[in-house]
């Protein structure tokens, strides 16, 4: 894995959420992120992996090392082909939940990373991309 620049991890079971945390930790360490930044990125990955599994009915996490203006970063994409999110603005509101959670997953994860991008529509699945810069 040490020399890979990108890869994919399936998110089809609870064990995969644990695996995603472990993979993201390894990737953050390769990027030499600070401990606090590592912790934030791993936590965000954990929240979004769970969203993909629970709300998206399973999917995958794609990862890639990126570079912009001489800075290196880690970008993660969480993708599913699930029911999608009808009202994105609402889903990004603190405390709003579709049911089981506390409604922190999306807005909370957004606060933990440098860049956050989401694309979703009813019936068309969801993709959330996050980036943490070194």
């Amino acid at each position, binding site marked *: 894995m040490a020399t890979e620049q990108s890869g994919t991890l399936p998110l089809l079971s*609870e*064990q995969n*959420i*644990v695996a995603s*945390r*472990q993979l993201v*930790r390894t990737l953050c360490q390769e990027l030499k992120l600070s*401990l*606090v930044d*590592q*912790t*934030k990125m*791993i*936590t965000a990955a*954990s*929240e979004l992996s*769970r969203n993909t599994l629970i709300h998206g009915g399973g999917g995958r996490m794609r990862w890639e090392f990126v570079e912009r203006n001489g800075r290196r970063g880690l970008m993660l994409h969480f993708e599913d082909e699930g029911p999608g999110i009808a009202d994105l603005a609402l889903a990004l509101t*603190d405390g709003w939940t579709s049911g089981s*959670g*506390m409604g*922190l*997953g999306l*807005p*909370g*994860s957004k*606060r*933990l990373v440098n860049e956050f991008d989401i694309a979703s529509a009813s019936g068309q699945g969801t993709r959330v991309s996050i980036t943490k810069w070194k």
Partner: protein
Amino acid sequence: MDRIPILRMGDTLLVTIQVDMQDQTALTLQDDLSNQIAKTGASGVMIDISALEIVDSFVGRMLTSISGIARILSATTVVVGMQPAVAITLVELGLSLDGVRTALNVERGMELLRRSRQENSFGH
């Protein structure tokens, strides 16, 4: 699936979480602790999370639930040993662990439980 062991020390139940838990493991721990409090009549629960490198909203919610359940069963819960990076991340995530008592380490946690027991026995 891993099962987190629960130790009994006098009136206190002691849990040390040392593995990256699956969600189901966290839920099982919540059930096991609730049952153990009722069965043993423990007045205190100490949860050591010093080995945890992250606490996400699921584990945070589990800690809040355990504290609430224990309170209703007349036991005080204290969460000890949270790493600074975890605390910073939790606050930014938006989880304040309302109602969860915390202490820096096991020693201070024990002291907090001891005081809480005294207060209860004096009927405050």
